[in-house]
């Protein structure tokens, strides 16, 4: 399924704008639940953009893992702690907030300037979208590479996940040692 270039652009801008707006929603919302749901929207927008960039596999993972797993985790924790969540305001002084906003904006401006002035690498790879199609599609290609070239990071992520599991279990185990 190939969208015409113009349409791609339009979708991209729509999703991007939405994404940015909801991202702002994440950081500006007083209620964590609202933030969490804004985040879900952001994830969807990003996933849509992935899809627009022909990264279908990633788009799917984005929705599955992020929107599905991570967000559930977040919401779960929010619920768990819900009873006692106070201080839902933005916190810190206005000056501090304003200052950080200015800092972020300034850095963003620099980044954007750098992005505009910079160029991506001149020598491109051979995996053009046509080639990918000819090789059996995005998922096929990615899996090929992942289990050959990228076997180390793949294995490593498994260990990472194990660490995450062990870690969170170790931290959240019910039985607490005596308070000191």
């Amino acid at each position, binding site marked *: 399924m190939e969208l015409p270039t113009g349409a791609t652009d339009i979708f991209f801008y729509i999703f991007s704008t939405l994404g940015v707006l909801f991202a702002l929603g994440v950081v500006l919302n007083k209620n964590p639940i609202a933030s969490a749901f804004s985040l879900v929207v952001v994830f969807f927008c990003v996933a849509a953009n992935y899809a627009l960039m022909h990264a279908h596999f990633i788009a799917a993972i984005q929705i599955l893992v992020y929107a599905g797993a991570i967000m559930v985790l977040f919401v779960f924790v929010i619920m768990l702690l819900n009873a006692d969540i106070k201080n839902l305001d933005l916190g810190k002084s206005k000056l501090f907030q304003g200052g950080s906003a200015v800092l972020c904006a300034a850095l963003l401006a620099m980044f954007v300037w750098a992005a505009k002035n910079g160029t991506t690498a001149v020598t*491109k790879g051979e995996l053009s979208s046509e080639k990918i199609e000819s090789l059996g599609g995005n998922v096929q290609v990615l899996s090929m590479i992942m289990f050959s070239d990228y076997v180390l990071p793949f294995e490593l992520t498994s260990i990472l996940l194990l660490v*995450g599991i062990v870690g969170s279990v170790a*931290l959240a185990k019910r039985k607490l040692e005596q308070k000191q």
Partner: protein
Amino acid sequence: MTTTTSLVFAMCLFFIGLFGVLARRNILIIMMSIELMLNAANVAFVAFAKDLQDAGGQLAVFFIITVAAAEAAVGLGLLIALFRNLKSVSTEDIQLLKE
């Protein structure tokens, strides 16, 4: 949709996330902001992968999502541990260690 515009989108997400880390007191929201930042990097990876006609970027995103998941799990675990002791998730309440 050019690489640059995608990049700008990514950067916007990135700095919104960063702002969240700076400005919010609620650690949960700070964690979400961090997720935003990671997403921003992912967007950049995918955009570059497309531009460069390379699969490496997309694969990186795959791994990063995994990392994000593990990180979120541990982070939330830490948060719960803290909450048990402190009954708070505000950064203002974790200023015992200083100077």
